[in-house]
């Protein structure tokens, strides 16, 4: 663009800057004076929402207001505008000026405030005129200088942002929890179907066990008969050898029978659990039941991944007579408590530096203050006091991910209470956890 045109443009720009930055005066703000600067249709934006006008009357009003409110902050004459950007349309009809405006803040001599001024010019019949002007002082304006409504608005936005952030974090966590619960449910569903399958399999296992046990028993009887017949023969080296071998076979058959009976016992316990119905209260040899189920819990743990070695000590009170319990439910409590103990001791073993740590489970039965006591004590990491209370609440679990349902202990507590008893916990962090079942003596 030609230099003459640019100087015309600059003259209008200087007048515009003056209008914006200098205090109100009647002469400067006449319609005639303003129309030499602004195009017939124009828009001026200031830094705040109120500073907007499209006609001279509004502009004058606003200017007067600003002078009142911003006393001391008003720009002084002699502001300096430093060009940042200049753009002219190729046909010479439009121009854009962007400037940094250095002003002296009136209150403190010498201090400057940087403002940014964007101005759009259009070439009209009368010459260059401003069609749009935007002035802002973004960062240096003290907060109190902003209009209070804007201030509040920004505060609200900041608050909302914080709330949204907090909620999104909570939502995220809830999502993770939900995912974990879903996985848990799928696992439970699989286990339930496995349980039904197990019941069917368990029954079918009884059939081959029937043959194993009975044929081994039968064969042992036959061997006795053979022995009787051999002994009728005149003794010789051969008869001695035959008798020796028969003795061995009889021993083997007894072993087959013994282990078949064992397998039958395990199948019986499995069925007891998969049936799931409410069993009846019966007189039970508590020591035997506890021994059987601790054994079952231990071997169940050993058969799973992350098996650990556990020293199991049974200190049962032999004088304990039959106890009236619901064996189906009560055995579930023993299994639960043992499983928890094994899990806790495994955790301690994995975390501890101490290589000599040996997990130990002590189970005691006895009578105290006319009540039957069963104690299950592990030397695991213990339970911190603050969560001891919560431990028996449904769905409370310290096990990560899908390892625990948070139901084991609450169900155990319900079962013991349905026996008219109590389930108590005692623990010392780093040392032991002891669950005590107290039953009424019948």
């Amino acid at each position, binding site marked *: 663009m030609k230099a003459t045109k640019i100087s015309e443009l600059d003259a209008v720009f200087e007048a515009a800057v003056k209008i914006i930055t200098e205090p109100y005066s009647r002469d400067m703000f006449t319609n005639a004076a303003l129309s030499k600067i602004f195009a017939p249709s124009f828009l001026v934006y200031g830094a705040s929402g109120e500073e907007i006008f499209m006609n001279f009357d509004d502009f004058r009003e606003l200017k007067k207001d600003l002078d009142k409110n911003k006393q001391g902050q008003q720009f002084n004459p002699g502001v300096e505008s430093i060009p940042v950007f200049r753009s002219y349309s190729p046909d010479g009809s439009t121009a854009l000026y962007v400037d940094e405006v250095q002003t002296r803040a009136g209150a403190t001599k010498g201090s400057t405030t940087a403002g940014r001024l964007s101005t759009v010019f259009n070439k009209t019949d009368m010459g260059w005129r401003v069609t749009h002007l935007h002035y802002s002082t973004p960062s240096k304006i003290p907060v109190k200088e902003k209009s209070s409504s804007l201030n509040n608005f920004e505060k609200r936005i900041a608050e909302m942002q914080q709330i949204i952030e907090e909620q999104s974090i909570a939502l995220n966590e809830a999502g993770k929890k939900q995912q974990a619960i879903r996985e848990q449910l799928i696992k439970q569903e699989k286990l339930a179907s496995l349980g039904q399958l197990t019941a069917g399999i368990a*029954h*079918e296992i*009884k*059939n081959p*066990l*029937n*043959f*194993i*046990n*009975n*044929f081994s*028993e*039968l064969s042992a009887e*036959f061997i006795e008969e053979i022995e009787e017949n051999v002994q009728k023969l005149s003794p010789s080296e051969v008869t001695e050898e035959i008798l020796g071998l028969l003795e061995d076979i009889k021993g083997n058959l007894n072993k087959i029978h013994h282990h*078949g009976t064992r397998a*039958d016992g395990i199948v019986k316990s499995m*069925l007891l659990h998969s*049936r799931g119905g409410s069993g009846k209260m019966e007189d039970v040899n508590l020591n035997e039941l506890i021994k059987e189920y601790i054994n079952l819990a231990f071997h169940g743990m050993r058969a799973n991944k992350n098996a650990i070695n556990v020293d199991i000590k049974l200190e049962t009170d032999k004088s304990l007579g039959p106890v009236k319990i619901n064996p189906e439910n009560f055995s579930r409590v023993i299994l639960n408590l043992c499983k928890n103990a094994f899990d806790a001791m495994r955790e301690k073993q994995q975390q501890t530096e101490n290589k000599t740590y040996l997990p130990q489970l002590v189970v005691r039965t006895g009578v105290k203050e006319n009540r039957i006591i069963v104690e299950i004590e592990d030397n695991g990491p213990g339970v911190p006091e603050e969560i001891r209370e919560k431990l028996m609440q449904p769905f409370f679990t310290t096990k990560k991910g899908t390892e625990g349902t948070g139901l084991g202990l609450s169900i155990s507590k319900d079962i013991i209470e349905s026996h008219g008893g109590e389930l108590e916990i005692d623990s010392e962090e780093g040392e032991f956890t002891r669950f005590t079942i107290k039953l009424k003596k019948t």
Partner: protein
Amino acid sequence: MKILIVDDERDVEMLFRQKFRKETKNENLELMFAFSGNEALELLGATDPPNVVYVFSDINMPGMTGLELLDNIKQRFPGINVSMISAYGDSENHDKAMSSGAKEFFTKPIDFISLKKEIRDFMAE
């Protein structure tokens, strides 16, 4: 005295024959076997009146179950005693069998001492 054992597992015959070797040799006991409910009913219906006095039946069998067989026998041959021998020793099966007129309920693996006692007591009567 003839007794009939009903079970879909064929090895049962070998087991019973060996277990009752002495009784079948010396005491007037004869064992018969059927491997399904239908086969058992055919056997019982072959002579009139049936010469079997006691039936021991498994419950879980393909086709007619032991409990159905029990009902059938009780209906057609009310004079014959029936006891059940089952791996399913739960109270539901037990109660069902007893209310349908079963004499005894034995569980698997079979305890032959109590089974022999039952047969001996029956023979004594």
